[in-house]
């Protein structure tokens, strides 16, 4: 497989915090146009891995290549520009609590585009509609929304700048099973609606059942190591005892 088939590549990445090694010589590539889930127990290094993708944490050794750019070799200002290639949905949505749903989604548009108010309104209402948020909820503050609604507004905000890579950090934690599947459906629909322009989705999760249902590829991590990186069908057949344990949960 050639490099241009990957959106994200980790090349011999090791990360140490003091004496603690959090990522141990990690090598993998995340394919463009696919939904890849990074799976593992708590403390496996999943969140550190995501922070490396975003350039929020730099590797101790090795390189992180995103969309052809070695992000650990570019300057801070350039990195900030580069991050506009990402959309992100946080574990608890991380909506700005002083802004309404509408203003949260409009926030990146106001910061990074020259769109006028009418254009912003049209785009924001379109995004909110696409994630199933009713127009009347657009004027509510995050504290007035349910957990599922907050995640959906977070997804709309993440999509506002038409990112190339969408990252989801434990997107369904704290949600009931029905809302969990609604959010996963939405993530899958979002992915396939945008896949024409090289869209990549990366999900950090420990929800094995949803992962098997919605992902194309799975990266399984344990103690800072990538134990397996397989397509879903191969993953289900893996003989690795840790993965078997995870699958039997």
């Amino acid at each position, binding site marked *: 497989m050639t490099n241009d088939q990957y959106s994200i590549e980790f090349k011999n990445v090791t990360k140490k915090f003091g004496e603690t090694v959090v990522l141990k010589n990690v090598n993998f590539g995340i394919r463009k146009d696919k939904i890849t889930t990074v799976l593992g127990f708590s403390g496996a290094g999943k969140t550190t891995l995501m922070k490396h993708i*975003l350039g*929020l944490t730099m590797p101790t050794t090795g390189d992180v290549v995103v969309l052809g750019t070695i992000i650990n070799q570019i300057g801070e200002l350039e990195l*900030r*520009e*580069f*991050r*506009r290639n*990402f959309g*992100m949905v*946080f*574990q*608890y949505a*991380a*909506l*700005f*609590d002083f802004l309404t749903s509408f203003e949260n989604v409009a*926030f*990146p548009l106001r*910061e*990074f585009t020259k769109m006028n108010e009418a254009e912003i309104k049209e785009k924001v209402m379109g995004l909110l509609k696409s994630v199933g948020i009713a127009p009347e909820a657009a004027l509510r503050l995050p504290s007035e929304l349910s957990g599922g609604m907050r995640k959906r507004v977070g997804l709309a905000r993440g999509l506002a700048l038409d990112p190339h890579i969408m990252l989801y950090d434990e997107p369904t934690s704290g949600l009931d099973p029905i809302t969990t599947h609604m959010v996963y459906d939405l993530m899958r629909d979002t992915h396939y609606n945008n896949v024409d322009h090289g869209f990549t989705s990366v999900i950090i999760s420990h929800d094995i059942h949803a992962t098997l249902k919605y992902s194309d590829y799975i990266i399984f991590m344990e103690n800072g190591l990538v134990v397996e990186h397989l397509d879903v069908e191969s993953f289900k057949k893996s003989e690795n005892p840790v993965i078997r344990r995870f699958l039997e949960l």
Partner: protein
Amino acid sequence: MKQMVERRIEILGANVLSLLTGLGDFTNFTMRTIFWTFKPPYRWKLLFDQLYFIGNKSIFIIFLTSSFTGAVFAFQIYVGMKVINADSFIGPIVTIALAKELAPVLSGLVVAGRCGAAMAAQIGSMKVTEQIDALEVMGINSYQYLAVPRIVGATLSLPLLSAVFLMIGYGGAWLIGTKVIQIDEAIFASKISDFMDLGMVAEGLIKATVFGYLIGIIGTYHGFGVEGGAEGVGKGTNMAVVWGMITVLVVDFFLTSFLTKIL
């Protein structure tokens, strides 16, 4: 015995190391905020929001504090001065004390309590709910977006609040001096112009500006330093208020020594 000495040295070393680390973090934070203050984009709306919050919204509490401070101080000076038959000096004594010390220091303490706490709590709660991470992921510098407007807002607001404190405090002293103690209004005012100069007012305003900057940087630093959940936010808020107030009082001493020589 040897073990006890070693243990004490270990504790001392750990404390010194922690102090130096904290100092390094604070210096790093300060340098970053200075850098991002002068780097575009300039966030005027956020600055005006902070000017409104720190300046305008503090007026009422400044009004209350200053009017009673001026009145009580005038009355206390009268009690002392009456003994040596110098009660006509109430005006200049109160006004000089207000201009040089009371207005900047008490305004500083009020703002440290009210706004330093709010800065730490707002930024701290944004940190624990990943809102600061969300800003960073969007490519927005959180220091520039959250810290700079608050620091600049406090730096610009405090001298104005201090000037308001001086005027209202003077009003309180004037009321007590002329209406309660019955000093002649003309004497009250003329003594002030005999003893006061612009340097004294400038000293107070310079102090207030420095206090504003320090309260802003301490409040935001403790906000960004919040770890954990609600407990962490509470701890950060508490630290912002305590350190803000201590800093105002300690820095006042050194500023007074320095400014008295040059003004």
